């Protein structure tokens, strides 16, 4: 991906290894996403990386009926995911009937190519056992 700096490369290296990496502040213990050189909560520069559980729930979603470009075949589901660790990220919901998606749905991470990009973290509903 163009313009990825050293910091963001840690995240994308994680993705390549099947890991969803987020930052945690060594001073105030807060998690944050997207990666930053400072903690957005306390401005500390002492941050560590941790592998998120990959579990979360759908905070909101939309079924895109008119794709952004030819690389994205509509319909596709864009969602905001609240991870267990308390951070939010944008992603896709995959392997789900778009009509069955609801806010609050429990989801878990997968890694899959979307559009023309390398694999990205995407989410799929947790199947009740």
């Amino acid at each position, binding site marked *: 991906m163009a313009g990825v700096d050293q910091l963001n490369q840690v995240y994308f290296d994680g993705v390549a290894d099947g890991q969803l990496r987020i930052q945690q502040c060594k001073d105030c213990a807060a998690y944050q996403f*997207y990666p930053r050189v400072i903690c957005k909560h306390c401005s500390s520069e002492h941050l560590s990386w941790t592998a998120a559980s990959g579990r979360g729930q759908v*905070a909101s979603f*939309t079924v895109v*009926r008119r*794709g*952004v470009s030819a690389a994205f075949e509509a319909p596709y589901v864009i969602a*905001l995911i609240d991870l267990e660790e308390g951070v939010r990220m944008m*992603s896709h919901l995959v392997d789900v009937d778009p009509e069955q998606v609801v806010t609050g749905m429990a989801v878990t991470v997968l890694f899959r190519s979307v559009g023309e990009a390398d694999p990205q973290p995407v989410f799929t509903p947790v199947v009740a056992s």
Partner: protein
Amino acid sequence: MDLSNIAIVGSFETDLGVVTDRGPMALGVQATLGAIADAGLKPSAIDGLITCNSLVTPIMYHAEATAEYCGLTPGHCLSVGTGGGTTYTALRYAAAAIQTGLASTVVVSMADSMRSFMTRDRAMAVQSSSGHPHFEQPYGPTVPAYYALIARAHMDTFGTTEAQFAEAMVSSRAWAHQNPTAQYRERVTVDDVLASKPIADPLKLLDCSIVSDGGAAVVLTTLERARDLPHAPIVLKGYGEGHHYEHISQATDLTQSAAADSGKAAFEQAGIQPTDIDLAQLYDCFSPALLIQLEDLGFCEKGAGGAFLASGATQPGGKLPVNTHGGMLSHCHPGNPGAIFGLTEAIRQYRGEAKERQLPHLEHTLLHAQGGIMSSHATVVLGRAN
């Protein structure tokens, strides 16, 4: 700082809608010179020029290039880089320039030609470039999709319905029907909106603003100078801004916007309440944006925006006329300049020149614009000079 010694003395709109005989810069020049003439001034009287950049043909020094085209040599030039909220932020910059002695008479001019001069490739590039380059763009979000995330959250939190969102366009067209300069004037029903093409659920085509060509400009100076000019001066009574985030995935609350902050500050400075507003010119880029502004600016309870729209309150004859020109849903939305027509329409209403949509009583107008994805907000309260 008291704003009420800053007056709007000139206003001009170019041809609007589909304008194929001139591009963004020519429209901006026409708007600039038109507003100066409307103010009863000579171009040489202008010593400040503020413009917004063009998305169709961006120029590094846009205000300076506009001045050059007009043969003006203002002592103060400022180009504001983005859309939405910057329209009214630019108004505040103009006032600040006058208050601090940077300039005495300032033009705020905005124009673009998204409808006729934007190539499809450039349009896709602009759309693709919205969103965080590494943590949003890879997922292929569209601008309607961002607002759809907000709409869905409002439905889940407050029980708002798709039919209530549809009322935004019903209201817009009820006004636009009475405005000969509006790009789309045909009345629509809730069913028409619900049956329009799906774009990003729950939003359909008629929940989305239009794509237009056009420009407009206003002239600001001190109230003292305004007394010698042809039009009764309109003064700035209050101003506020609010900025909670830029990227939608960083919003901590999808249904509560920083319009609450900008509105509160503007009302406090003006010394009035939402119930004192006779005309609200809001940023209706997408139906949920309008609905949430009605709530966050205090025109109805939080969560009641859908019912408020469905009550007809914002339509002709309603208790809170909103976007009497038709707004960006129907009148004109050339991109970055979209909100300026809310201002030029307000001035037309103050002058009693709005013909069949003329409001019988107008003291206080609220102007609101937002940029990003309900991210960056600016509110202005206008009133008549004492």
